[in-house]
């Protein structure tokens, strides 16, 4: 079975949500479905960021930056 990437999943989710969306009158606050789509898209972006961090070869002895006063 072919593996679905996060990007493909995001496209599929947003495409199906678009198909399901009903036309709505213009309003200042986005409808809940649009807000949920936006939230899902941002979550997906954060997952992609985490994936990019995972790809960085981090040595075991690298400690977090905790001293910010240069």
């Amino acid at each position, binding site marked *: 079975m072919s593996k679905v990437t996060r990007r493909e999943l995001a496209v599929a989710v947003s495409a199906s949500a678009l198909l399901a969306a009903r036309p709505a009158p213009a309003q200042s606050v986005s409808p809940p479905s649009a807000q949920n789509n936006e939230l899902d898209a941002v979550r997906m972006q*954060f997952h992609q960021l985490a994936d990019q961090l995972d790809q*960085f070869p*981090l040595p075991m002895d690298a400690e*977090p930056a905790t001293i910010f006063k240069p």
Partner: protein
Amino acid sequence: MSSVPDEIFFAGISEINQRLQKKEFSARELARAFCDRLETIGPRYNALALSLRKDVLRDAKDVDGDIKRERLRGPLQGIPFGAKDLLAYAKYPTTWGAKPYEDQIFKYTASVLHRIQKHGGLLTGKLAMVELAGGPSYRFASASLTGPGLNPWDATRWSGGSSSGSAIAVAAGLVTYALGSETSGSILTPSAFCGVTGLRPTYGLVSRHGAMALSWTLDKIGPICRSAEDCGLVLEAIAGGDADDPSSARKSFYYTPQYARDLKDVTVGYAPVDFSEGVDPAARADYAKALETIRALGVQLTEAKMPQFPYGPVISTIISSEGSAIFEPLIKSGKVDQLADQHQIAGLRAGLEIAAKDYLKAMRIRALIQEAFRDLLSTTDVLIAPTRFTPAPKITQPLDQPLTDRPAPATPGLTALIPAGNLCGLPALSLPCGFANGMPMGLQLVGSPFSENLLLAIGKTFQDRTDWHKRHPPVAAA
């Protein structure tokens, strides 16, 4: 008729201060003239959050009394300035550019404002900003309580953010200088887009007491001015230890251009690709001249290579994690939905779900980045690159997409210098250095921690030989 001549609206700090001392006009006349401009022109560009006319006219009267009695308090005495609306000013609204906080009033004043007022500075108004200083991210320039910051060079274009009102007000001659803040690019970007000079100080050099927090480990307060010299004068007033700010480096700053290092001993690193394929084609000729001007200062120009790290993912993870933790009460109350930008709302909500391991991973990589830059800056004193590689975008352009459809160069050059410099807490100076199709472009200089005097010395010498910083948009008089 005002006794304040029009050229004063675009004059530097020292010139205005000298003319005040010569009594060519009073501080009260000056403050009134700037208030008129700020209140009339400021709203045209969505730059004004709050005029402080009543207070500033009272303060200006005191300054006139001091000057009369020869109680001179330094170059900032009597000079009108503005402050980004993320700085608390007692008894007046501090909105952080965001609807949920439009009625927020603090009982205290930010340390930086106290410091400038002790020097006789005249706070004429609070200046507009992107809501919550940009938060984790926003999609449109309209992400602000006051609407999109409109660029005085072309009002169909964005001013840049998040210190949008600060850069607009300086560029349009509504204040002589302004305070902004930077988590990642919020001083440098609007300075470049609006054609003014901006200084991001070393992390911890300027107190953040009384400033909205977006990221405890990244936030800095700094000046946006007409020149490098003015940035030095303002930094001297606002820098220094503060027991009320846990991040304070407890260091002072004295602007000493007279003791600047001989520039012949200074090594300046750059990536040639940034000045050719990297930057907007319409600005390449000006950048080539800027590079030649830097070379002609006598510095040793060398090629520099950016250490390879995932700068974007690291800084985004840190800002999103810290920002959402800071605004957790807003998010959980549901009032986050009052923000103007849907992407911002979603970013704040989703930021609460970032795993601790991912935040720590970003901070572990950050430690390696800091180490790599310590090594790089042990052999190169200053790094230079275009501040932004494209001019200000149209206000309707989505900001979470690339601002250009030009293909990226084969090598990245120093394109990630803004996130890298912020992750390392390094100081940076953005200087106007040319135009692309009528829109200003900037050159950024980045140095080691607490090397502000060196950056300012290079900036001042550059500005002694160029006039980009003296140009201003054809803004109609008030």
